[in-house]
């Protein structure tokens, strides 16, 4: 029940709540009204019974004759005159009563059934002399009043239903109208991207109740914008502060190499220094990349063809490397993705594909395959190689910063240990993931899951 409710929109929940309340109220009102009407109808019935009984008593006192009295009794009514000494003195033809002796002492309403008809009778006592009492017994069939009660009941039911239906329509309209300012505000918030953090949400005819919410939201946007700015400034400063001394080192060493071209010993020494500086630079770049939490490019989606093209571009770039020339590298796309929008951007695709391919070139065997295939809400990009693979207990660890597997790669000091961590970070930022599995007979596959949606 709670799960069902949680899936409903705000409008539906409000309408449901109001409708339930209304049905409760209408039902209570209808029941009350029915009982009240029933009571009044019965009371009215009883009053008219009493009045007629009193009239009959007067009539009896005035004219005792049965025929005369009988003219005042209708065919469906029952009448009897009973003497405590002499018994029934007169009665109507349809008067067939069970033993009423026990009730003759008091005038009260009795309901009973006779020949399938429910009657209500009133017994009134008249004293003739010391020991002789007359009992005027008069009754009417209850079906009339019950018929009326039934009619009123159905009238109440139908009118309640109509009321509920009409009010349902009015409630939906009113709730929508009432929640419109909130939805307007929500629509404005939906369109906000990190590039809009420096803007405020303003809209005319904002209702008073929402003004504090809008103000708080704008304050939040301002804080988020400041935080983003600080993060960007920090990244830029860190980038500058890290890259400048590396540039000094690199330019100094390269200039010396140029000056001492002919001196092999010195040049060799300088070149080995340069290698370490380049490695240091790689680590810095990877660290800077992995610390970027917000997207570089504001475009959040790529078409399937853009995705494929960027992979092909990265592939052709890496194929030019010397280490790639001796490898058999293939690329295949399975299934159609023409209607798909992938949740990623060009920069991310380039970074991840190049990182994965570089690893495959470094640690894989002589055969590397890239395969793209759709899988429900994802596109899977798999990079297979027939190298050594990774020990089972390291499959998660290799995605951690600075972790380098030494089991199969004794000379792994060339690696920064940051490439896969950067890839995983980038994939996760776009609600995707990267993982690896060893393949048989030999090798490993790295799979990047890219979230996608159908544009149809």
């Amino acid at each position: 029940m709670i799960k069902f409710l949680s899936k409903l929109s705000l409008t539906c929940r409000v309408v449901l709540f109001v409708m339930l309340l209304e049905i409760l109220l209408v039902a209570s009102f209808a029941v009350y009204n029915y009982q009240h009407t029933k009571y009044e109808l019965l009371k009215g019935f009883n009053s008219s019974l009493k009045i007629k009984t009193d009239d009959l008593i007067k009539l009896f006192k005035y004219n005792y004759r049965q025929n005369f009295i009988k003219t005042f009794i209708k065919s469906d009514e029952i009448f009897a005159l009973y003497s405590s000494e002499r018994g029934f003195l007169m009665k109507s033809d349809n008067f067939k009563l069970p033993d009423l002796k026990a009730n003759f002492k008091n005038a009260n309403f009795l309901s009973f059934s006779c020949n399938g008809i429910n009657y209500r009778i009133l017994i009134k006592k008249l004293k003739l002399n010391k020991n002789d009492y007359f009992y005027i017994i008069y009754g009417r069939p209850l079906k009339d009043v019950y018929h009326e009660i039934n009619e009123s009941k159905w009238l109440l039911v139908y009118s309640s239903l109509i009321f509920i239906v009409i009010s349902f329509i009015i409630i939906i309209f009113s709730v929508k109208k009432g929640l419109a300012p909130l939805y307007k505000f929500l629509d404005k918030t939906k369109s906000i991207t990190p590039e809009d953090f420096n803007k405020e949400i303003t809209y005319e005819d904002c209702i008073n109740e929402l003004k504090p919410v809008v103000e708080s939201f704008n304050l939040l946007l301002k804080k988020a914008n400041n935080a983003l700015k600080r993060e960007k400034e920090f990244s830029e400063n860190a980038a500058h502060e890290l890259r400048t001394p590396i540039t000094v080192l690199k330019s100094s060493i390269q200039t010396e190499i140029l000056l001492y071209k002919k001196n092999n010993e010195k040049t060799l020494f300088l070149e080995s220094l340069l290698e370490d500086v380049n490695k240091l630079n790689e680590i810095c770049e990877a660290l800077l990349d992995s610390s970027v939490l917000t997207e570089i490019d504001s475009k959040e989606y790529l078409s399937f063809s853009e995705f494929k093209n960027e992979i092909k571009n990265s592939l052709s770039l890496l194929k030019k490397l010397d280490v790639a020339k001796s490898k058999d590298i293939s690329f295949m796309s399975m299934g159609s993705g023409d209607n798909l929008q992938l949740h990623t951007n060009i920069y991310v695709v380039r970074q991840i594909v190049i990182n994965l391919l570089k690893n495959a070139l470094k640690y894989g065997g002589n055969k590397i395959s890239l395969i793209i295939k759709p899988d429900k809400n994802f596109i899977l990009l798999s990079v297979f190689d027939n190298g050594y693979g990774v020990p089972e207990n390291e499959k998660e660890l290799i995605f951690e910063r600075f972790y380098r597997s030494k089991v199969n790669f004794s000379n792994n000091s060339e690696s920064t240990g940051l490439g896969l961590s950067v890839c995983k970070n980038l994939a996760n930022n776009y609600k995707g993931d990267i993982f690896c599995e060893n393949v048989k007979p030999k090798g490993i596959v790295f799979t990047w899951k890219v979230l996608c949606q159908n544009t149809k």
Partner: protein
Amino acid sequence: MEDELKIAENIKKAIETVLSYSVDLCNDGEEGLYFALNESYDTIILDLMLPKIDGLTLLLKLREACVKTPVLILTAKNTESDVIKGLNYGSDDYLSKPFDMGVLLARIKALIRRYYDKPNPLIKVDDLIVNTDTHLVMRGNKEIQLPNLEYRLLEYLAFNVDKVISKNELLEHLYDYNWEKFSNVIEVYISILRSKIDNDFDKKLIHTIRGQGYILTDKK
């Protein structure tokens, strides 16, 4: 224009050694702007994060003043938006730090060739061939050995073939800011060049235009 002294010195040393070009150094944007507006250069290497006037503002001011000297931006900022910004402000090329010195030198040469509309590194004037890449000079089948300054003088004339170049312009091009501008070194080097380029050949290519300057041309 680079505020980091060591980087600036290394670049200057590399350019002077490998490319044999003269280099003026500035450590802040104000000084750099003054130099760029008042001297003529074949290329400007500009760091974006300069004190006093930042690189992009300086670049904007240069282009507003119609200074067409090619500019190569050198900076630690290397996001795509920064690259696009730098190019949109009027730079001709972009290299992010830390850069490879060889790449920097190659890009400087390419910029200069483009600036003088000489995409081909081989400049031919009649039977004279000047290879701006290897600094090899040939006339006919004869290889002509030229030391640094003589080659640079010839190269500048070759970049501006059929154009009269004044002595001052040659001085500015060949020497850095600190050189004394009133010497007759240009006349001396022109004379030496003529002896190597023209003396053994019937057709003379280096001509003096009185009161104006010098011209390298195969036309009469």
